[in-house]
């Protein structure tokens, strides 16, 4: 893999800042499809076109019981 120094200039810095491998740069095929889907859906939100984030959301329904 080609090393990329994020700094550019007219002299050598004491330390180089070489980019570490970013998981985003090496997505599996299914991860890439999921990423592409999200980007495309967000650009076309409207009507039945919605997007739900895949977060660890959990809800036990308790909050509604207060009003009962």
């Amino acid at each position: 893999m080609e090393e990329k120094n994020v700094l550019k200039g007219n002299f050598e810095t004491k330390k180089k800042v070489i980019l570490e491998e970013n998981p985003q740069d090496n997505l599996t095929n299914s991860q890439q499809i999921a990423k592409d889907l999200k980007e495309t859906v967000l650009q076309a939100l409207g009507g039945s076109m919605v997007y739900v984030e895949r977060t660890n959301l959990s809800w036990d329904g308790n909050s509604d019981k207060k009003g009962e």
Partner: protein
Amino acid sequence: MVKILFINPVIREEDNPKHIPYGIALLAAIAINDGHQVQVYDANAWRKGDEVLEQVCAADDWDIIAIGGLTTAFGYIKKACKIVRRINPQTFILAGGGFLTSMPREIMDWMPEIDLGVVGEAFVTFPVVLRMFDEHKLIKIPLDFQKTLGIIYRKSNGTPVLNGVRPNIPNLDALPWPAWELFPLDIYFANSKLLFSEESFTSKRRLDVNGSLGCNLICRYCWHLGTTGDMVIEENEDGINDVRFTYGRNIRYHSPDYIVNMVQYLRDTYDIDFISFIDENMMTMDAYSKRTWIFDLCEAWIAAGLQPTCRSKGIPHDDSCKGVHWGGTSHATLHRKESLEHMFKAGCSQLVYGLESFDRDILKTLGKGSTREKNINSVAICQSAGINPIPNIIIGFPEETFESIRNTITALLELGIHAKPHFATAYPGSEWYYDYKDSIIEQYKGNLEAYIADLGDATKITATISHRFSAMELLGLQKIVELRDLRLLELTQIHWNEADQFMKPLATPKTSFNMVKKKIQAPLAKVVG
């Protein structure tokens, strides 16, 4: 020599990085020419997060870390300055650009990490500050900024002091070319395509050029921030210096030879196929030069062999086309058919027109000098020259009404324009900002800084300045304009008309020290340096 790190802030995270920061690239070139050690970290291009920024800050013993940009970059700049100060407690932090110039006193209050700000045009001020640093390092002269024009600095107790205005340079050709080589060009070239015309859509290597500084018009939503001779610095009612923006103008443009030589170099060095002129308004320059600048620029472009083959041979553009296409900015009242035809011949493929509205009354209030008829005709005139017009549309003007929205939709339908309009937004430095500052602060519950931070997302509705419509109504009207649906507009009007008697305006204008609605011209320097 001074060891400088420039940081280009992340801007518009929702979009890919498309434009090398022209000002930073110029200042980097100026610093290098003066013998300083320069590094650039282009955070906007890399989009790599805070950890990489921390590594960059720790990569050397920086004398100065310089950061700047427009108000839309405020959020990142604020965050970055905190990181810079944590990693580099002793490094001098220097800021500049529109975000600081539009409100230097507030920015210095909100961002205590900034040691010094360059206010207005930096082409002379920045190297002057670097020379002072050099002398300070070499012969231990104490840093004393009391007499340095164009800066805001801190006294030993941290209190900011704004000095007098720095005269604009008279000759833009005295500037070096931007230091493109210090930026990750591969990232920018990967985002070369612009959805403005077939030629820009098929561009593989596009770069920007700024041919001029200034614009004669006084559009209420526009800002210039000292680069057009519009800014003076005077004592306010509290007896302290503050910025005042005016209708004053110093119109300046590069010679056609300067521009064409630069584009030739870019083609020979980077194989570019498209140039975006990021000038405020190229047609102002055409009019100001008595209709010579555009003509001479096009002639020089063709003479230098930059004319695309599709234009020289009179054939449709396709992938086999050689040469450099370009696009820029125009104006419905200032453009001329002859100029446009010449521009097409030289390779111009698109022109952005800030038409904003097709309502007579709204246009009269904008300071653009355009009319409904001129706006309508401009589309046809531009198209007849072979150039793709890109009209910008806005809703939510202070005097916006259902009738003015209807007039805009009707024109969009007649002209075949599809547009999702922007919302009228009071950016700092614009006349609107100072007129409606109190209303904006009220809408943000007293927190002006929260408003400034919100301006980073161009798609967002922030503070409304419409006297009639709330944010809720404007969001709906934006959709109706996008759909060009006059039936929905009529239904909405019938519904809201009944509620009108209970409505009170959210935004009301007032006068401000920071905006002088007169032609007070800032000075031009006699010599550069």
